């Protein structure tokens, strides 16, 4: 087990720079998730930690040792790939034993370690099968088994669940989290799915366009997003944004006036143009609130999502109550003032 430090790391392919100075600290035993839209550089960063890509500038250290010029096999890491990368011509057992056999480990040691990994993952019945004879979830488990067998300092996961169907993804999510809790190995995990990030991580690193937008615990990011990107990326359905200005102690957009947050940020003086952010689940039904015109209702059973027009802006609300209004009818809503976010209109950063 070890810490991982990424310090001012830059990566360029030819003249195109894809990472513009990234700093990430991973504590010993921590589960860190790099999340962001495709092309944000998260996979590249992971591959650099694994040693599959060179570091153009900056420093990567694993367990206090700078590994910029250390070969992948000497970094004491294990990686699970998106398509699992199981060796098709080897049985499950041989797949898991491959790294140990390269080290010329004694047979008893290999048998013991593979046996233990198979037991942890429930793979004993499949040890003599070939990867093509396994289901997606089983292949995923073999890929993890291959990582566990090596007993590495750091686990690296590159979008490991994106090839699975939705139901299996949820199950494997819990399994990976459980595995981390049992083994306690430092883990860095890449995904584009913010739900995966929220549910599994100790710490989330939100990346966008080769930069780190924000880093912190899942609920910190949810409660206090640093900027518009993080606010819009974390949470599902996404946060509503309304453009407008502050006037007379309230937020005005078009004809609609909404209350300011309970703790008014210092920069929120009259006349300032801001973006008002409110999560769909923080819109409340309130007869005294503003009227919005219902556009579409989407009942999911536990809650009902309503797409409605608030002034000229379309917003989404998620309500625990059953909504009886038909499209075209109006619904009176009010934001929970304790959970309202204000962002600067120009820079997109949070006002605090």
């Amino acid at each position, binding site marked *: 087990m070890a810490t991982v430090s990424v310090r001012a790391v830059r990566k360029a392919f030819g003249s195109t720079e894809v990472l513009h100075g990234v700093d990430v600290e991973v504590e010993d035993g921590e589960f860190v998730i790099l999340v962001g839209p495709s092309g944000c550089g998260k996979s590249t960063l992971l591959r650099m930690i694994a040693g599959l890509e060179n570091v153009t500038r900056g420093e990567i250290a694993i367990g206090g040792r700078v590994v910029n010029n250390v070969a992948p096999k000497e970094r004491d890491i294990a990686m699970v790939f998106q398509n699992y990368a199981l060796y098709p011509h080897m049985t499950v057992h041989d797949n898991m034993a491959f790294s140990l056999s*390269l080290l010329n480990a004694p047979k008893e040691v290999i048998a013991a370690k593979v046996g233990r990994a198979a037991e942890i993952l429930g793979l004993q019945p499949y040890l003599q099968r070939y990867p093509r004879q396994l289901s997606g979830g089983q292949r995923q488990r073999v890929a993890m088994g291959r990582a566990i067998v090596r007993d590495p300092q750091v686990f690296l996961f590159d979008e490991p669940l994106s090839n699975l169907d939705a139901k299996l993804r949820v199950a494997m999510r819990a399994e990976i989290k459980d595995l981390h809790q049992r083994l306690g190995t430092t883990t860095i995990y890449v995904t584009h799915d913010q739900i995966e990030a929220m549910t599994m991580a100790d710490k989330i690193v939100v990346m966008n366009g080769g930069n780190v937008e924000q880093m912190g615990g899942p609920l910190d990011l949810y409660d206090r997003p640093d900027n518009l990107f993080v606010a819009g990326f974390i949470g599902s359905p996404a946060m509503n944004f309304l453009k407008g200005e502050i006037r007379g102690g309230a937020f005005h957009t078009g004809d609609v006036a909404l209350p300011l947050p309970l703790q008014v940020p210092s920069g929120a003086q009259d006349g300032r143009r801001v973006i008002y952010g409110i999560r769909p689940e923080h819109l409340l039904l309130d007869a005294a609130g503003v009227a919005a015109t219902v556009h579409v209702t989407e009942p999911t059973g536990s809650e009902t999502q309503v797409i409605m027009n608030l002034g000229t802006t379309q917003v989404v609300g998620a309500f625990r109550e059953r909504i009886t209004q038909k499209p075209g009818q109006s619904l009176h809503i009010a934001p929970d003032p304790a959970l309202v976010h204000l962002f600067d209109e120009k820079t997109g950063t949070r006002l605090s």
Partner: protein
Amino acid sequence: MTDAKPISPAEADQRVDAEVSGGVTEGEGPQLLSWDSRARRIVTVYIPLVIFLIVLLFPFYWMAVTTFKPDNELLDYKNHNPFWISSPTLDNIKKLLFDTDYGHWLVTTMFVAIGSTFLSILASVLAAYAIQRLRFRGSDYVGLAIYAAYLVPPSILFIPLAQVVFQMGLFDTPFALILTYPTFLVPFCTWLLIGYFKSIPYELEECALIDGASRLQILRRITLPLAVPGLISAGIFAFTLSWNEFIYALAFISSTENKTVPVAILTELVSGDVYHWGALMAGALLGSLPVAVFYMFFVEYYVSSLTGAVKE
């Protein structure tokens, strides 16, 4: 035959019957010649196939028939049907096997074919792997240069190669051929293997790198086992070409006992203007058997690797 509605064989038969008797069933007129009808299939598939087969196999048939014909039948088409043997004989084969060095030629040819195939595959695997996976500076150009070498026709190349062979003292030895055949085998095999290596997912090698394998271990334990179909088809290709090669074998070998089968049967079984057709054809027939057997076992791999079938 892909865009038609599937119909049952019975239905198809009925339609054919209708056609044959000239009758038209109610409302079915325009569909009579559907793609699935048997008549259509016979005209578009079976007849062309049969013609194709006849054209392709007739030389082999002629070869076989001539091999077993006695001389009087062979030279007299007026009194004997040229396409059939009235009194088959093994004289020609006996003559080939016992009056000439045919056994020796076969062994030499086999040795040359296996030797040059082995050498070429070894060189091609290393070259293809380096070009496709190591992506060293200029690897694309090296790939193109190898291919350009393939475009130089052997009929030009054999003159400079003869110089090399003489100076190395290899003239009239099997090594003259084993070492020169790779000049045309390596380029093709390399390109075939580059294509095949490309179809093997790159992650497998990255994973092996992290697992602690060196490049050579990856090649030996991951890439090559997965490239077996590619290796087999490259092997078949190299073996067949070396087995049948003529120009180099004619130019670089002079003594009778060192000749390869294609050259030997032509130079040793034609004395002056007398063609020993029977023995000649027997030599050709026996000489083509190993290649045919080779193909028979591996034809599926050959096709799948040339069409780039990938599996994971």
